């Protein structure tokens, strides 16, 4: 099955208690490409990507309706195990959150270990490959036993990316991954994202319009829980079809 779309979202609605935060979202996420989700605060973009790996439902009184189809399976179907989903759809968070008391090695090996991989040689290989792919190997290969908390912010975030990569996911979700980092780290991670897009489907939430323009192939604009516009980045940024999108990207909101 080689559909160009990795995830197809159909009529997705989401609530926190009585408040509806996502209204009728329909979208197809392309494989081997970067899709950016942008929009003003509170537009539902973070809720949206958390619905893609079934993290939204972990919040008390959260509710979801609609379908999210991944590899032909609706991840919200009754028999589907959320941990199965989360192994294949990984997530990187806004604030880098490596396990602080654990070493760099143990952080990256965490995922494979909890999914049953115990062989030391195999783990070594996985850790190395993941760190290489995240562009961190050269900087840490000297001592993988160092605690993760000894790394800088940008390195920690790349460690979190390596940790997600170690599970060999098919999709990587990123929730404003660079908003807490210095400009050089931001640039490094954006380059990394473009490189990863050769292999994975990447969905990145960003509040930085310029970043969305730089990094993505497709961009979606959310506003007040709705998907207002979605298309190839060049098109949306050169000639937005919707007045709201035009106002948002040119900074006329407010």
């Amino acid at each position, binding site marked *: 099955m080689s559909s160009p779309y990795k995830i197809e979202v159909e009529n997705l609605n989401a609530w926190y208690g009585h408040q509806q935060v996502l209204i009728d979202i329909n979208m197809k996420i392309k494989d081997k490409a970067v899709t950016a989700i942008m929009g003003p605060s509170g537009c539902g973009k973070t809720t949206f990507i958390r619905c893609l790996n079934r993290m939204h439902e972990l919040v008390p009184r959260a509710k979801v309706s609609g379908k999210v189809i991944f590899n032909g399976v609706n991840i919200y179907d009754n028999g589907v195990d959320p941990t199965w989903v*989360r192994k294949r759809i990984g997530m990187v968070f806004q604030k880098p959150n490596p396990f602080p008391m654990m070493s760099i090695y143990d952080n990256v090996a965490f995922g494979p270990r*909890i999914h049953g991989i115990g062989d030391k040689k195999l783990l070594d290989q996985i850790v190395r490959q993941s760190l290489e792919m995240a562009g961190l190997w050269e900087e840490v290969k000297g001592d993988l036993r160092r605690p993760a908390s000894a790394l800088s912010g940008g390195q920690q975030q790349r460690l979190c990316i390596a940790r997600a990569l170690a599970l060999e996911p098919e999709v990587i979700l990123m929730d404003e991954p660079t908003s807490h980092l210095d400009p050089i780290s931001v640039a490094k991670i954006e380059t990394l994202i473009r490189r990863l897009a050769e292999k994975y489907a990447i969905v990145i939430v960003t509040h930085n319009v310029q970043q969305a323009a730089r990094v993505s192939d497709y961009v979606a604009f959310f506003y007040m829980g709705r998907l207002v516009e979605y298309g190839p980045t060049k098109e949306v940024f050169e000639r937005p079809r919707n007045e709201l999108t035009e106002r948002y990207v040119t900074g006329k909101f407010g």
Partner: protein
Amino acid sequence: MTKLHEWFRHLKDKLVLLLAHLALIAALTPLFSVLWEVFRRGIGAISLDFFVKPTPAVGEVGGGVANAIQGTLITIGLASLIGVPIGIITGIFLSEYGETRLSSFVRLFNELLNGMPSIVIGLFAYALIAIKIGFSVTAASFALALIMIPIVSRATEEALKLVPATIREAALALGMPRWKTTIFVALKGARKAVATGVLLAMARIAGESAPVLVTMGYWKWWFAGFDRPVAYLALNIFLFAKSPFENWIALAWGSALILVVIILGINVVVRLLMREKRL
């Protein structure tokens, strides 16, 4: 603001500072005087015999509190065996499912248990266990466990809450089932805090005499089975101090000193553990 006003304000500041210091001294004086008294009177009883010989028979000279130390350790040990796991599980439950109706009920129950006079808990344990199998270390441990549970539970719940949600989120996003993240988070992050809670609970029950009195009573021999009482340090103090025998009174003071040292020791350890906590 004139110079005079300024000077008055300065004076007021100094005055309040002085009063605060005086209050501090007033608060600490009783504590230190107790410690001093116990030390002064108890140090004389401390000897090798003290730690090695059991309770002396009536009329016998010398003797020690070795059996009381043994009994205290066994009692606290058994109480912890019962109380700590229950307390930890309760704490985990409250922190994980803290929003449900059942949890509010559990919380209420915890509060009540915490506030209940220990003698009442002792009587409860008596009615439940001592009546059936007689005065015993089991009954006493049960009573003490009940006292421990709210303390350990509260400490566990707080400890789990202190671990940042981001750690748990990271584990969840990697595909760890929810119940496992609780254990993992508790193990990795809350370890020290829970340990301190347990130690504090132990320190608390080490000093309880009322519930032990009504569930176990006095025992002057070595450990003789779980359905029998054991000698207990806190109880010894109570009983020996009233006796007419010189050496018994000395032993009482010595026991007091040991008990105070143990409890202080536990507190110091707790402080040390809490200080090097870096998440």
